[in-house]
């Protein structure tokens, strides 16, 4: 289902996002994040694959000469279609855990403990891989609220010269990167 963007179609997609290539690259990453989350919230089974498919379709339309004024809105429509196809696809094997055994899954004994340890180890490793400033920001921003988190966030914003919303967005992006790293690490270890 998922295809590969050719260089030409990828360039057209970037150009449709922004005339400046660097800004276009940032917008492309933001669009990709949005699509992945969309498919996750829509409970589609393979969010990344569906994201690639959606972007391929949008890029193909652009390379065919279609003029898209609202690229975000168009991506949404394409993503909805991909999601519907994915959810109704005969090849889509439903996760047995989704058929009602959620509680059982949540309370699985040994496997869960092992997975938890693996996740913590991966988290350590992924935190280490962050730049120092990023690591500090994550720690400071997401520490427990009972320890003066609000004041801490205020002070952090002042220190970095950001308003609270910009700080929150920066923390969010770092958290997403961290989460991707941990998920990939856990999947690798569990696959062994």
């Amino acid at each position, binding site marked *: 289902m998922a295809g590969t963007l050719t260089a030409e179609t990828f360039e057209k997609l970037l150009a449709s996002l922004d005339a400046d290539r660097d800004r276009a690259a940032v917008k492309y990453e933001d669009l990709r994040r949005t699509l992945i989350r969309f498919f996750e919230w829509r409970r589609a089974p393979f969010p990344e694959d569906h994201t690639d498919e959606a972007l391929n379709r949008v890029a193909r339309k652009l390379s065919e000469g279609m003029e898209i004024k609202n690229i975000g809105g168009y991506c949404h429509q394409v*993503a909805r279609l991909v999601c519907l196809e994915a959810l109704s696809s005969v090849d889509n094997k439903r996760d047995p855990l989704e058929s009602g055994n959620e509680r059982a899954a949540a309370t699985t004994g040994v496997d869960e403990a092992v997975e938890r340890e693996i996740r913590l180890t991966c988290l350590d490793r992924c935190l280490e891989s962050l730049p120092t400033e990023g690591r500090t920001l994550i720690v400071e921003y997401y520490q427990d609220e009972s320890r003066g988190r609000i004041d801490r966030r205020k002070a952090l914003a002042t220190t970095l010269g950001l308003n609270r919303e910009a700080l929150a967005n920066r923390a969010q992006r770092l958290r997403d990167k961290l989460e991707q790293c941990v998920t990939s690490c856990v999947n690798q270890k569990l696959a062994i």
Partner: protein
Amino acid sequence: MKSSDDIVIGYLCGELSEAEREEVEGQYFTDPQAFDRLTRIENDLIDRYSRGRLSGETRERFERAYLSNKNLRARLKFGEALAEKLDRSEPSPVPTTRGSLWQQSFFSSLKLGKPAFAFSLALVLLLLFGSVWLSIQSNRLRVELARLDAARAEQEQHEAELQQQLADERKRNQELASDLQRASDQATQTKTSPESVTPAFVTLLLTATGVRGAEPTKPPTLVVPKGTEEVHVQLTLKDHDYRNYQVVVQAIAGPQIFNRRNFKPRIDKSGATFIISLPSSKFAAGDYMLTLSGASQSGEFEDVSKSLFRVERR
């Protein structure tokens, strides 16, 4: 009427109608701020759930929605791990400046990534000290090399000077040897062919032997080479008793060629010395008598010595 937060929670928990979903999605696909807000609310829910701070009903809805899907469950698990990790560590002081933030990040990185960071730091310090030590050593060796170069140059110069002196000495030696050879050759030449050398004067040395002293068997001969201009006759008298003297030189059976009264001699330890200088032309070949007389107190002259000598002309 649902609040925006209720709508968001409803969306995240999959409880909205299709139309409501599309509306929410339409917003966040076209407005990045709306998407950021949605994800912040989601993370806040995850963090509160992980720390057991969601209220009963919200917790149940959230748990039901997120545990039933593999990907959302993974997000929940990540949130739990992050909360556990961060809450385990001591809360760091609120940073007041960017500098203190960096200091904190330094120490927290030590806590979080101890072995690798410590190793890297140790390696960096080691490299730093190593490079400083190498720099000092290099400098010291450079100074030493410069000193040795200077000493070598000085030695070479001294050696060159000595070589030059040696060459000069050798040259001088050669010159002296040449001079010596030349002088020797000249001396030899003079001995073998005296005619070729014309002295300016010749000297006859006589010693006064008294009036009645025994005459030598052979009178002394004065050889006067051709071209000689003067003849010096030197008479030495051991005991001189007179104040002044008279010297007469006469050819035997011939004329007087010299006569002087009040002749005062040169007096020294050896006695009195009378030097008579005459043109050589006055001395024809033949015999001559030199008579020395001393003047007494009465003024009369008495003979002191008579010396016979022969002149040969060449």
